[in-house]
C-alpha cells in the first residue's frame, strides 16, 4: 500500500465514523435516534465547540497550564530519575538496600496519591507536577539504572585502556550512555507527565484541560466533554511529534532511532 492509498483509507475511516455519529445523533430512523444527542452530542456541535474554544481564546490558558505542568513534571522527574538511577548503578550496595522500597513505591497506583498531593501542595500547578513526577521518575530511573548496568564492559575497558581518568570516563562513557537511556524512555515519560497533569486536574483544579473536561462532565455537557477530549488528543499529538523530532536529532548514532524500551 503506498502513502496516498493509505491516507485515502485513513480519511475514509474518519469520514465513515463521523457519518455514523452524525446519522445516529441527528437523523431519526423509524422515529428513533440510536445515538441520542444528550449522551453523544453531534459531530457538528463538537467541532463547533472546539472552534469556538480556540476563537474566543478560552482554551489557551488551559493548554498553557497543562503544558507547564507536563513540562515541569517531565524535567523534574527525569533529572531525579536519571540522577538516582546513575548513582545506584554505580553503588550496587545502595541499590540492593533500596530495591524493595523502590519496587513497592512503583507498584502503588499513583492516582491514590493525588488527594494527598493536593493536601500538601494545594489545588494549583504543583500538586499536578508532583503526581506527574511520581510517574516519570520511575520510568526514567529504571531505564537509566538498567541501561547503565548493561553498559558494555568492553567499551568501558577500552576507554580505560585509552588512559581516561574518572572525569573523562564520566564525560565520554557514563554520561552519554545515561542520556541514551533517558532518551529511550522519552516518549513514555513525556506521556506519563501528561497523564499526571491531566488526571491531577481532573481530580481537583481550577484550570487545565483535565479541569475543562471535568467541568463539562459536572453539568452533563457532553459536547464540552468531547470537545475537551479532542483538544487533549491534538495536544498529545503535537507533543508526541515534538518529542519524535527531538529524539531523531539526539539519537542519530543509533541504528533505530524509534526503538522504544
Amino acid at each position, binding site marked *: 500500500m503506498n502513502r496516498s492509498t493509505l491516507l485515502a483509507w485513513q480519511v475514509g475511516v474518519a469520514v465513515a465514523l463521523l457519518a455514523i455519529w452524525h446519522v445516529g445523533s441527528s437523523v431519526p430512523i423509524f422515529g428513533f435516534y440510536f445515538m441520542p444527542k444528550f449522551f453523544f452530542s453531534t459531530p457538528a456541535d463538537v467541532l463547533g465547540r472546539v472552534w469556538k474554544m480556540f476563537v474566543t481564546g478560552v482554551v489557551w490558558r488551559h493548554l498553557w497550564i497543562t503544558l507547564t505542568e507536563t513540562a515541569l513534571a517531565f524535567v523534574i522527574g527525569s533529572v531525579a530519575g536519571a540522577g538516582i538511577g546513575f548513582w545506584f548503578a554505580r553503588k550496587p550496595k545502595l541499590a540492593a538496600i533500596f530495591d524493595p522500597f523502590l519496587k513497592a513505591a512503583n507498584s502503588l497506583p499513583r492516582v491514590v496519591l493525588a488527594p494527598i498531593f493536593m493536601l500538601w501542595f494545594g489545588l494549583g500547578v504543583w500538586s499536578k507536577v508532583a503526581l506527574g513526577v511520581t510517574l516519570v521518575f520511575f520510568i526514567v530511573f529504571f531505564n537509566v539504572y538498567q541501561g547503565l548496568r548493561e553498559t558494555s564492559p568492553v567499551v568501558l575497558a577500552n576507554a580505560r*585502556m585509552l588512559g581516561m*581518568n574518572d572525569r573523562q570516563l564520566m564525560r565520554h562513557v557514563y554520561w*552519554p550512555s545515561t542520556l541514551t537511556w533517558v532518551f529511550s524512555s522519552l516518549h513514555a515519560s513525556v506521556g506519563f507527565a501528561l497523564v499526571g497533569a491531566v488526571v491531577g486536574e481532573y481530580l481537583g483544579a481550577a484550570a487545565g484541560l483535565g479541569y475543562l473536561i471535568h467541568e463539562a462532565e459536572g453539568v452533563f455537557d457532553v459536547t464540552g466533554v468531547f470537545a475537551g477530549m479532542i483538544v487533549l488528543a491534538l495536544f498529545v499529538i503535537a507533543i508526541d511529534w515534538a518529542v519524535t523530532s527531538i529524539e531523531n536529532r539526539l539519537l542519530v548514532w*543509533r541504528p533505530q532511532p524509534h526503538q522504544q524500551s
Partner: protein
Amino acid sequence: MPQTNATPDPAVSLERVTVAFGAGAARYVAVADADLAVGTSEFVAIVGPTGCGKSTLLNVVAGLLKPAGGSARVQGAEVSGVMAPCGYLFQQDALMPWKTARDNVAVALEPKGVARAEALARAQGWLAKVGLALFGDRYPHQLSGGQRKRVALAQMLIRDPQILLMDEPFGPLDAQTRALMGDLLLDLWSADRKAVLFVTHDLEEAIALADRVVVMSAGPAARIVAEHAIDLPRPREINEIRLDPKFHTIQRAIWNDLREEVLKTYQAQAGGAA
C-alpha cells in the same frame, strides 16, 4: 624510556603467572604458571584452542585483571592498574557507539592533553592511514565489521603505545578482509616496530604475521607449551607468504605441538578426574 641498566627490559615478561576466577568450590584456574617474554620490537602471536585463556593472559598484561600468582611486568615495571604503555585492540566491538569514527579516534588523545582541534586533525590523518579518510563522520553502526576494526586500530595507534595487545582482532571478518587487515597491520607495524602480542585461533594468520608463535594448551590451568621462531623474510604479504614452502614446514611443526599438547592436557584431565 629511561634505561637504568645495559640490557634493556623486555616489553612484556610473564613469570609463572596464574589466573583464577571465582572462589571456593567454584574456583576455576584458567591459566597456571605461564611464562612469556616479548622483546621491545618483537611480534609474538599466541595460538591455542578457544577458551584456553588467551584473552585472560592479555588482560593480565593490560592490567585489567590481577593474576592470582606469579609476576607480570611491562617494560620492567610490575603491572598495577591499567598500563599506560599498552594499547589494546579488543576481540569485541569496543568503539563508543555515540561518537563518530573521527571522534572515537580523536578522543584517544584527550588523556594525553592534546587540544581538540589538533586531536581531530591527527585523527583524520590516522583514518586516512587505515583507508577510511571519507568515513570520519559515520557512526560505528554505519560501518562494516572490517571498517570498525580499522577505526579501532587507528584509535589504538594514535596514542603511540609502545606495546600493542591484540585479541583476535580480525576474528569475525571474512578471509579476504582478514588478509587485507593483516597486510595493513604489518605495514603500519613495520614503520616503527612496536612490541606486539597478538592472539589468534588461526595458525596461518599467526605464522604469516609473527616473529614468534607461542602455543597455549587447553584449559583449565592452561600454560605455554611451545614456542616457534618464524624465520620467514620480511616484508611479507599475507597471501604470498602462505605459498612459501617454508611456511608449510613451520605450520606442520607447530600443528604437531598444538595437537600433541592438547591431547596431553586432555589425558591429564581425564586421569585427574578418574
